[in-house]
């Protein structure tokens, strides 16, 4: 047996709410597990938990992250195995507490233990820049920044990228944090009419590498309603393919970026219709 390499801790974050952090956490977590990796997805949105719904595990949550921090349950009791996908696990958030229940020491202890058990620890950050978001990013080795092609989302993402260097353990040690941009809800038609930002514009403003571009699609919502990540529910759909490719890139595979319904070359300079 090959020795277990140290886990990679990834935070999925955005600043702005409703851009697709939880959906993307579930989709990428599932995609990594489908590659044969051992994955745990951790919901840091204490008081507003959603990740359990995305994985269809809402009725199976007995113990959660806060129980483990407070010592009322151990980690093995709180980890929920996915029923359909071997290798995928969930550590749910508490719905009855708030973010103040996340203690520095407790989070550090849990992250350390998860690292020793899994190949990937994926932390779903709450929106905002307060305690919950800071705790979710604190122990990360890499970050996936979710942005929608609109200026408010891009500016909030920029703010979060600044915090990633200032507030994380890695940043404090002076180490560079790997940052990946995942653009979700990308709508080619609306980009062409100038209603939405183009990928080049977003990448230019945020100046971090693009991990993937997920097209806007009803299939994403359908999958959420089913309680199954889109990467499992509808494997051949364009958003599932985009998430799958993003997960492979995250593992270090060199896969060319695909434009959803793409007719334009990707990194051609095209500065149309950005609001000042």
């Amino acid at each position, binding site marked *: 047996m090959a020795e277990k390499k140290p886990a990679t801790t990834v935070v999925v974050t955005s600043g702005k709410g409703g851009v697709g952090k939880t959906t993307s956490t579930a989709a990428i977590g599932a995609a990594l597990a489908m590659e044969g990796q051992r994955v745990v997805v951790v919901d840091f949105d204490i008081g507003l938990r959603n990740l359990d719904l995305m994985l269809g595990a809402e009725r199976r949550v007995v113990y959660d992250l806060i129980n483990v921090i407070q010592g009322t349950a151990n980690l093995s009791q709180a980890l929920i195995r996915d029923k359909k996908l071997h290798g995928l696990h969930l550590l749910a958030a508490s719905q009855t507490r708030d973010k103040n229940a996340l203690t520095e020491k407790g989070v550090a202890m849990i992250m350390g233990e998860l690292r020793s058990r899994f190949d990937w620890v994926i932390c779903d950050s709450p929106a905002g*820049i307060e305690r919950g978001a800071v705790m979710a990013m604190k122990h990360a080795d890499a970050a996936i920044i979710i942005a929608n092609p609109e*200026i408010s989302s891009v*500016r*909030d993402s*920029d*703010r979060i*990228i*600044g*915090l990633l*260097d200032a507030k994380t353990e890695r940043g404090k040690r002076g180490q560079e944090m790997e940052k990946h941009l995942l653009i979700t809800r990308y709508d080619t038609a609306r980009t062409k009419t100038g209603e939405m930002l183009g990928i080049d514009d977003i990448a*230019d*403003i945020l*100046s971090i590498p693009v991990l993937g571009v997920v097209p806007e699609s009803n299939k994403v919502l359908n999958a959420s309603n089913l309680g199954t990540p889109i990467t499992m529910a509808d494997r051949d759909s364009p958003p599932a393919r985009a998430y799958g490719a993003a997960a492979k890139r995250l593992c270090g595979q060199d896969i060319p970026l695909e434009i959803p319904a793409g007719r334009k070359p990707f990194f051609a300079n095209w*500065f149309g219709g950005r609001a*000042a």
Partner: protein
Amino acid sequence: MTILAHTQSQFRFQGRSFLAFVIFPTAPIGRWLNDLEKWVNESPGFFAEKPLMVDFSKVSPERDEFNSLLAYFQSNKFRLIAVENIDPAWLPRDLLPLPGGRHRQEIEAAKKQSPISGNANSHGRGTVNSLMLNSPVRSGQEIFFPAGDISVTGSVASGAEIISGGSIHVYGALRGRAIAGSDGNEKARIFCSSLEAELVSIAGFYKSAPDIDPDLFGRPVQIWLQDNLILLKAME
């Protein structure tokens, strides 16, 4: 039924740091004071509003010399906050030495250069003070460097703020706010590779995005102050 319970008031304190000038009188005190007065008259506003501390480590004055100095610094030209290295018994309670604080060399340098000049922050400074930022300045970040120029090799994001005592050079896009010559240096300039700024300011004069000629948007631009007007010119 409603019961009104008296809850204890909650106090929240925030730390705040300021830059204070420290001045060192030298012997003979009479002449030093004359020279200072001349200097202050020729650079009005240099000390205005800025906290000032007097350090007697370089001289040991007589009691009456000290009292006349103290009276001078307590006049309304200055904002004296503490006196150091003197017998504490000579001091009124509100001027006792402040614990802590770090000395900053660059202010000393600024004080020494061109002592009789109307512009306290002109060129020809002995030491070069500049701040080099090799990563983009992100939204919400505030860079404050009163001691000299700031250079940014990346972009300055919308919602970010750069405040420099000297000039500002941005080799990416300037999308946030750039405030040059924050101490009143009218010779400070702003340079950027792509002007998309929310606000540019030099020595307290400013122009916000709606006042900037839209033809300059996205172009490399130089910004300077002339006759109290902010001027912008494309560098192409």
